[in-house]
């Protein structure tokens, strides 16, 4: 009986040690995150953080599952069987923990590089992005087609008020086309 209890206590101690190690890793990662400012490194840290969280949940569940069954003698046998399961879970957790450390170590030299990078932009810069190019192309094509359409409508139209309106519309779309094109010329091609 006493040996079984001591075994259980040892197992609990081991689990607590693993949790402590994982918490230490989390604290290290959080400290690194605070140093990091660029958005490119954040997804890496988020991925690293997501790995220990399910492990913590597994270790917590195994600890909770063991605690209510301590009072029963028949459950003690099951605990020894359950003790094997968390020990098996401990091994992949321990295997993942050293893996996380080199990843954390690999990310450490990048913090020095982030300190040299320029500060984050307060507002988007005045450049045309790759996403924007497709919208500009669509608008320029639409305006070009509209101009041609209205010119042809002016030739074919009989009613004078419609003709006048189509002329104005054609001129308006030509002006819009020129405006969009001038923006493209002024603000495009500034990628460094």
């Amino acid at each position, binding site marked *: 009986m006493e040996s079984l209890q001591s075994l259980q206590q040892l197992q609990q101690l081991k689990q607590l040690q693993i949790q402590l190690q994982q918490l230490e890793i989390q604290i290290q990662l959080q400290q690194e995150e605070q140093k990091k400012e660029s958005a490119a490194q954040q997804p890496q840290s988020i991925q690293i953080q997501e790995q220990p969280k399910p492990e913590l949940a597994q270790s917590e569940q195994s600890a909770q599952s063991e605690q209510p069954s301590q009072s029963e003698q028949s459950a003690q046998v099951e605990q020894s069987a359950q003790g094997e399961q968390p020990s098996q879970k401990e091994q992949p957790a321990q295997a993942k923990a050293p893996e996380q450390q080199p990843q954390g170590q690999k990310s450490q030299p990048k913090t020095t590089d982030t300190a040299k990078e320029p500060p984050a932009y307060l507002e988007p810069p005045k450049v045309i992005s790759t996403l924007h190019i497709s919208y500009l192309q669509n608008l320029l094509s639409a305006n070009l087609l*509209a101009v041609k359409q209205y010119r042809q*409508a002016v030739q074919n139209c009989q009613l004078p008020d419609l003709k006048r309106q189509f002329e104005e519309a054609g001129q308006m779309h030509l002006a*819009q086309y020129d*405006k969009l094109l001038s923006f493209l010329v002024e603000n495009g091609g500034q990628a460094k």
Partner: protein
Amino acid sequence: MTSSKKIENPKMPHSQKAGVTDHDLLSAALATEKNLDIAYVTAMHEVGQKMFYSLYFDLLKETSLLHQKLLELQFQHGWSSLIPAAPEEVEALKQEYTDYRQELK
């Protein structure tokens, strides 16, 4: 229950020619302006820079004003009509949404 009385201008005589008529030209112009409006609105909401937003907003205002003028022309020539809603319908809608407004107090 809606009123059957249409509000419209006398229609232009329909051309017997099979070619593109003035009505067709106006319909095409309306469709063009509508598509351009949608394109401007989409670009406006996808872009993060203020100067592009203001540019697209100005162009959108021009095209939507033109669209409005074309709609007026369509109505003037009798190619579009509208049917006024019955007073009972309007009153019922007004009462319903006045009650909803009370909930927000």
